[in-house]
């Protein structure tokens, strides 16, 4: 069951990447650092200042959302405005990632004087056993939250006007503009939302592992974007599928070849996917 929990967190991260990818056609490489900052903030507020996990989460989500907006404003929008090739954004977001990662490292250095800090769970962990499967209520909470978000997102995308505007902008921004959608605002909003998801994912990881450090985001961030690319352009379904497949492949590899090769498998899977079908499993034809 624990694999499922982790997998669902990865699915959340992958969704964050997918949202941005479907919107502007490129990977936001600053995502990992934002995730870390979200977790650090949540920890700081919930634990160090003792204000409880609810407030911590809220602040983390808001701040990270703002960071997402900042990413768009500084690293992506200028490129679109000047009609530069969008893959330049890989470089600019990478630069931004360096900045944010450095800030995260220095903050954890100054504020905590420690490499990592314990992140106590907000409620008592109790065990539940069904048949031969053992899991804790924390697992349920995480999976439940992720599932709720996914469902909510799906509902938003398909049923509300705002969500449909998002979907329209994703598939063809020019048509959307013509139809009266303010694509600029939609993109900014999506960046905000995806980074808010990052904050949530980071906080959940912090609670789940019981600790937060400045290198929290790098590995999951990478796995997340690989998962989203493998799964394909569909925002939610693709992310979940990709996370599942990646998780499965990693466990298989760990069992068969040896655990050191886990990361390697992820990258090889990405290359293989690209060679076979670049748009991912659920993606349509390669348009951009």
């Amino acid at each position, binding site marked *: 069951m*624990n*694999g499922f929990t*982790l997998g669902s967190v990865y699915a959340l991260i992958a969704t964050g990447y997918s949202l941005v990818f479907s919107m502007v056609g490129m990977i936001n490489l600053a995502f990992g650092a934002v995730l870390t900052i979200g977790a650090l903030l949540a920890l700081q507020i919930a634990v160090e200042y003792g204000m409880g996990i609810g407030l911590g989460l809220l602040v983390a989500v808001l701040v990270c959302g703002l960071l997402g907006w900042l990413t768009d404003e500084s690293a992506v929008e200028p490129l679109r405005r000047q009609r530069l090739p969008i893959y330049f954004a890989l470089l600019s977001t990478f630069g931004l990632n360096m900045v944010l990662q*450095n800030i995260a*490292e*220095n903050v*954890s*250095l100054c504020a*905590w*004087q*420690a*490499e*990592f800090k*314990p992140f106590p769970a907000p409620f008592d962990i109790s065990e539940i056993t069904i048949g031969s499967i053992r899991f804790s209520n924390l697992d349920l909470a995480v999976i439940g939250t992720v599932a709720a978000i996914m469902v909510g997102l799906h509902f938003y995308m398909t049923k509300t006007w705002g969500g449909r505007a998002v979907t329209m902008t994703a598939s063809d921004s020019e048509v959307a503009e013509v139809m009266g959608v303010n694509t600029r605002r939609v993109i900014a909003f999506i960046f905000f939302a995806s980074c808010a998801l990052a904050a949530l994912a980071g906080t959940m*990881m912090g609670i789940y*592992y*019981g*600790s937060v*450090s*400045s*290198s*929290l985001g*790098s*590995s999951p961030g990478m796995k997340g974007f690989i998962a989203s690319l493998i799964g394909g352009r569909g925002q939610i379904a693709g992310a979940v599928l990709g996370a599942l497949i990646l998780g499965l492949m*990693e*466990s298989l590899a*760990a*069992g068969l070849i*040896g*655990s*050191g090769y*886990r*990361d390697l498998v992820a990258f090889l899977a990405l290359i293989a996917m690209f060679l076979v079908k670049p748009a991912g499993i659920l993606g349509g034809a390669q348009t951009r």
Partner: protein
Amino acid sequence: MLKKIIPLVVLVAWVLVITVSSTRDSEAASVAKAAVAEMHIPVIAPLSGPLASSAGREGKEGANLAVKLINDKGGVQGKKLVLDWFDDRGEASEAAVLAQKVADDKNYGVVVAHFSSDACFAAMPTYEKAGMAMVTPWASHAELTKRSSISFRMSASTAIYGRLNGDVIAGTLKAKKAAIILANAEYHKDHTKYLKERLAAKGVQVVREETYMIGDSDFRPQLTNIVNARPDVIAIVGYPKETALIINQARDMKYNGPLTIAPAAATPEVINLSAKNMTDTYMGAGGGTYNEVLWGKSTADKTVAEFIQAFRSEYKKEPPASAGWLSQAYDVIRVIAAVMQKVGNDRKGILEGLKSIKNFEAVNGRLFGDDRAQIPDLGISKFDTTTKQWVTIETIK
């Protein structure tokens, strides 16, 4: 024609500016150092990057503490001791470049560097050419002092601790089957090599060996494989963060057997994160010196007592329970200052001086052994979950 010469002039000017500014920079600094009554020691450590908050910060605290004590007592040869810090981010390529920078400066007679063994290896040739002694407070690769004649290390070789870990498993715990989980990194592989050597010698079978990457947070796949192999003991070879997570996850998986950890993980952070899970957890390390004594249980050792007292008065807090990196940096500065007191800031003199040291009393045992490393006072400790402290259960002569 003139217009074509302009870019040329600009280029030449730019080349000159860059080169001149880089020479002028070190020259000015050199002149400044020689003028004032100061002795400078360069220290190269990870001040930024992933290792900064542990090794970098602790190293700084320890080294600065030693400097303060020394200056309070009149400095070195009457001059104030000053540390010049350089950041190598724990990386070999940065280390190599910085090594050259330090070696170029004639005012430096010795260098305190680096954290990781591969940074040391990359930088050593440069120090050798410059005839400069390199004293590393933290790196512990077994071959460090074998590959070069100018290297000294503060920590005992991983060979000693690896074999001690084996003794704990075979002797104290009387295990027949052991499993090892280690990171795919140099310290861990080194330690495991000697651990397995000792286990083989004592007839303990290694039923499973699993690796992870530093920075991993999820060890369940590896632990599942290990638990399924049904070992008597699990040896966790890791840095603090991973060790703490592995301990927690192993207990979560209902593995309740004994665990051993490597000395690198004997830090307060591990205790903070996993104390309640550290039942039946052992460590072969320098017990009897800083572990127990730092808790104030015994002030028999004068050097340690002095260290504790200085730490308390300077930083206004208790020294952490396992101040490995901190105290090693402290020891380095003290031993170098002692040598510099006799010979001044001369490279050859310091190198010879360090080589001739036997039995210098350090917080972490005695310096230097035959291979220019620390001679630790060894012991075996068990973690007490009620007091949340390591307790020495056996001292080894």
